[in-house]
């Protein structure tokens, strides 16, 4: 006689360790779990609200500079180390974990115009108003030793910016012209000029490391190839570009921070049309830096705020401001893509979270799963009006708010005027120019 028995495989219900969660058999029959859309909608709504509740991005303020912070630099090897140069020629090295200044160097007389670290992280370069380029050791000098630069290069003109090559012992400075230097030489390898105006900044491409871009006061962005003696091409915009930043994940894409309150993301192969015009600032954009993931960038503006833009969005997803933060001159996204630093006029370096509501510290797997799920839900329902409204809602300082209103009116007026002009002129004589193309004056090769 056959006896039927219940038999169970212990693997199905016994935990391997007591830290594992109990396995709960579930029935995924959709009829048992109705109203999936409304339920998920509610979850998304709650997640969005919670996101706003926990949005506390400001982490720390690093104070110690005695003048406005003019430039910032990341350490290529250490996440905790940040270098900053101030308007009084002082360079400070900060430890972020301790939130303390670990070293102070009186590097220059007058402004420290630019600062950059060597790719190995052993030394850094500064340029100042005193027409010198100085190389400093990253490590502090021994007891009793004086703070002295490794090398000092005396230039003929004022240098306004400096950037180091990502692999080679070469760096580039900008001023009247773009100079490419070998670390071992006191004279530049080559100097490149296109036009006669001062150049604000120069940046090496982190991927195609021989490429570099510069932006000049004569409203143009010029691209160079280090291996050639002449510049590649340039694009002339409506207004001056303050600085550019290359996308660390896409070699040919860079973003330019412009004086016309906008940022322009360009594909260097097709400079006649920017990929995206990022508008939200209400004053000149002074600095821009990409997240190491290449998905977002942060911009610092004269309107006392920093904004975070997704690369493919024209509007910012986040705006950071504090009452005491004045014109933000420089901004950097840390190498682990979690934090943002900004140096401003009022002598402080501020540390922000890149994601305002992100929980700091180690997450358990369940927390992580919940976070991911909530993130996905927010993404899924981001177009729903309530969720959109809550997610987009930000409190802004009155100055910025009123300026936004004002600029909206101005923009509307311009648009109306254009429409009117088109209406009252010969058809086709006033062509419709897209927003992207509007700001590009010319591309020169």
């Amino acid at each position: 006689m056959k006896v039927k028995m219940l038999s169970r495989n212990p693997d199905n219900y016994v935990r391997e360790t007591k830290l594992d969660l109990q396995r709960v058999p579930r029935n995924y029959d959709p009829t048992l779990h109705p109203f999936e859309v409304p339920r998920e909608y509610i979850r998304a709504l709650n997640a969005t609200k919670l996101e706003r509740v926990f949005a506390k991005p400001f982490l720390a303020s690093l104070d110690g500079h005695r003048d406005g912070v003019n430039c910032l630099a990341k350490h290529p090897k250490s996440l905790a180390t940040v270098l900053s140069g101030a308007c009084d020629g002082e360079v400070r090295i900060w430890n972020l974990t301790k939130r303390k200044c670990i070293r102070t160097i009186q590097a220059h007389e007058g402004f420290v115009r630019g600062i950059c670290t060597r790719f190995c992280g052993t030394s850094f370069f500064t340029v100042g108003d005193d027409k010198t380029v100085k190389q400093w050791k990253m490590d502090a000098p021994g007891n009793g030793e004086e703070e002295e630069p490794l090398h000092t290069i005396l230039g003929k003109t004022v240098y306004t910016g400096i950037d180091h090559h990502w692999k080679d012992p070469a760096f580039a400075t900008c001023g009247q012209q773009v100079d490419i230097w070998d670390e071992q030489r006191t004279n530049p390898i080559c100097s490149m000029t296109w036009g006669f105006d001062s150049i604000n900044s120069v940046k090496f491409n982190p991927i195609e490391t021989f490429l570099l871009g510069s932006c000049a006061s004569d409203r143009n962005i010029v691209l160079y190839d280090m291996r050639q003696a002449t510049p590649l091409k340039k694009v002339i915009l409506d207004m001056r570009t303050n600085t550019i930043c290359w996308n660390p994940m896409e070699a040919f894409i860079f973003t330019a921070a412009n004086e016309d309150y906008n940022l322009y993301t360009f594909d260097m192969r097709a400079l006649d049309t920017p990929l995206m015009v990022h508008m939200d600032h209400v004053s000149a954009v002074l600095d821009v830096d990409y997240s190491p993931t290449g998905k977002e960038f942060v911009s610092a503006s004269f309107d006392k705020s920093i904004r975070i833009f997704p690369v493919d969005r024209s509007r910012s997803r986040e705006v950071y401001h504090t009452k005491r933060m004045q014109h933000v001159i420089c901004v950097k996204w840390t190498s682990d893509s979690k934090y943002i630093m900004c140096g401003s006029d009022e002598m402080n370096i501020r540390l922000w979270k890149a994601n305002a509501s992100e929980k700091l510290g180690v997450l358990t797997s369940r927390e992580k799963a919940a976070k991911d799920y909530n993130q996905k839900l927010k993404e899924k329902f981001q177009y729903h009006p309530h969720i959109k409204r809550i997610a987009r809602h930000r409190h802004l300082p009155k100055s910025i708010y009123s300026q936004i209103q004002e600029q909206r009116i101005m923009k509307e007026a311009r648009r109306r005027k254009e429409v009117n002009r088109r209406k009252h002129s010969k058809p086709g004589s006033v062509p419709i120019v897209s927003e992207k193309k509007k700001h590009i004056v010319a591309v020169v090769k």
Partner: protein
Amino acid sequence: MKAIRAAEGLLTLSQQDELVDLPNYPLSASEDEGDSDGERKHEKLLEAINSLDGKNRYKLAERSEASLKVSEFNVSSEGSGEKLILADLLEPVKTSSSLATVKKQLNRVKSKKTLELPLNKEEVERARTPLEHEIFNLLHKNKQPVTDPLLTPMEKASLKAMSLEEAKMRRAELQRARALQSYYEARARREKKIKSKKYHKIVKKGKAKKALKEFEQLRNINPTAALEELEKIEKARMMERMSLKHQNSGKWAKSKAIMAKYDLEARQAMQEQLAKNKELTQKLQVVSESEEEGNTEEEETLVPDVVNEVQMDANGPNPWMLRSCNPDAKEEEKPMDSEHLPEPVAHQFSESEEDERPVAEEETLLKEFEERRALRKRSEFSQDAEPMGSRETQDSSSQEVLSEVRALAQRLNKGNLQSRKQRVTSTGTVLQVQREEPAPEEEEPLLLQRPERVQTLEKLEKLGKEECSQKKELPRPILQREWTERNPNNQPDASKGKKKEQMINLQNLLTTKTPSVKSLEVPTIEELEDEEAKVQKQMIKEAFAGDDVIRDFLKEKREAVEANKPKDVDLTLPGWGEWGGLGLKPSAKKRRRFLIKAPEGPPRKDKNLPNVIINEKRNIHAAAHQVRVLPYPFTHHQQFERTIQTPIGSTWNTQRAFQKLTTPKVVTKPGHIIKPIKAEDVGYRSSSRSDISVIQSNQKRLSGHHKKQLKKSSTD
């Protein structure tokens, strides 16, 4: 000894014979029985004579083997050599009477031999001498018992007086009784105080149930008492009917009627009451029917025809009535079969019993009727020569009787109804009865003429004999149906008469369950089912009598359409340019002039859908949560809807799917420096990257996610 015994037997026999010859022979004994008795006695005599010679011994009765059934009906009488007749056993009077005389004689003889007994009491009490007188006086004064040395009444009283213990016990008993009584009183008061209607309802129901049970028991044990009880119940019912309690016109009912629209319970209560009312009012009809039935029963009892046996099983309002009637009929059937000329006395008795209320008038009428019937029967028997035609003639006679009975019953009914003063609507019932009368009477001659009927009747008779008991249980409607089925040629006529009855039967069916009938010749199941369906329909109809859903819906739709129509704007100002005031209306011309007609709106979506109301109004509360414009990357709303409708939560997806669905596009490791991408990182020969894992989405083709995971080791 033997000789003496034989002589005694002879003596007794001779005496018995003498007794047989006596003229005051009881009426119950029949003549042929008497004959058979004579023969037997003769045999006995012969036997006794034979046994005198001594050789042939009297054979004693003995039981050789055990009989299977040991009962009074199976008593073996082997010894006597003849069959034992039950009647012999049941007639102790004859033998005892015959023996009594012998015994008396013997006693007399014996008494003469014995000495005189002590003085009789009378003799003793008779005082002769003065001394005796004196003594008697003394004795009488003290009430001293003379005959026995017994106790005087005083002594008895003293004896009767209780002992202390007894007294205590008695007192305790009394106390207990009093306590119990007070307890019961308190309980009753408490129960009376309970305000819960439900509780009282339940109690009432329980009581009713209990009463019914008791009645059932009583019916089994003591039918006459049960009948009395029944009478009481009937009276209570009548009182309830009289009270007009269930007309839904009381205060409570009115309040319920208001609430019924919203409250399901109230509706139910109302319906219950209505049903009760219906039941009560139904009984009015049924009673009249039962009276009719009573008539038919009378017919049955009077007419020994099996035709009526079918109708006899009247399923009246209460089954007890039927039960009480039927045994009578059963009893009657037997003697009728056995002896064709029943005694009128017995019938009379049965009649009176059946009728419950032996009114003098009724009785006399019945007597008269009985006599006439008996006469007719006798004449029939005497006249009857042809055996074949006897049935028919009997039938014809029965038909005559039937008609007579009808007339009689009608009169009776009238009398009855008038006597019952409580019945308000008696005239109505009478009318009904009268109305119904003619149809069956018309039916009868037709029935007579049919030759097939005899067959059916015979069949029915057989059936009736076989399943007499069964049929009694059958509800009336089935039988009726059967009846009509068997005589399909009667139907057109019968239907006329039966229409009313059928209606009532339907109602009966509503209240009583139909038991399944197996032994019927003609299959009636289909009919039954049909009936059931009808009943179901009717029940549903009754339950939802108030609400016409379709009409309500149509009305609702009409209202919705009206409400959504654009309205005309009336801009007339009364009193402007003309006289105004109370009762004055602006002129038609003016109204026409200032009435702005609303433009015709677009046709309604549900214009051609009769069963649908589409609300075309935009729900602003819902709209606040709805996406108004198709978001940018999507090119068709269906794409967007699909993305929204695909759930991503673990409630709807397996763990793995959930993980896959919720993985962010870019995952970074905290505390790791993310290096810029290198030319070597791109492509398939990439090794894993520790600091970042990116699922890249193709920005140009947003509809499909082009997943490409870039994993490369970060070079230091």
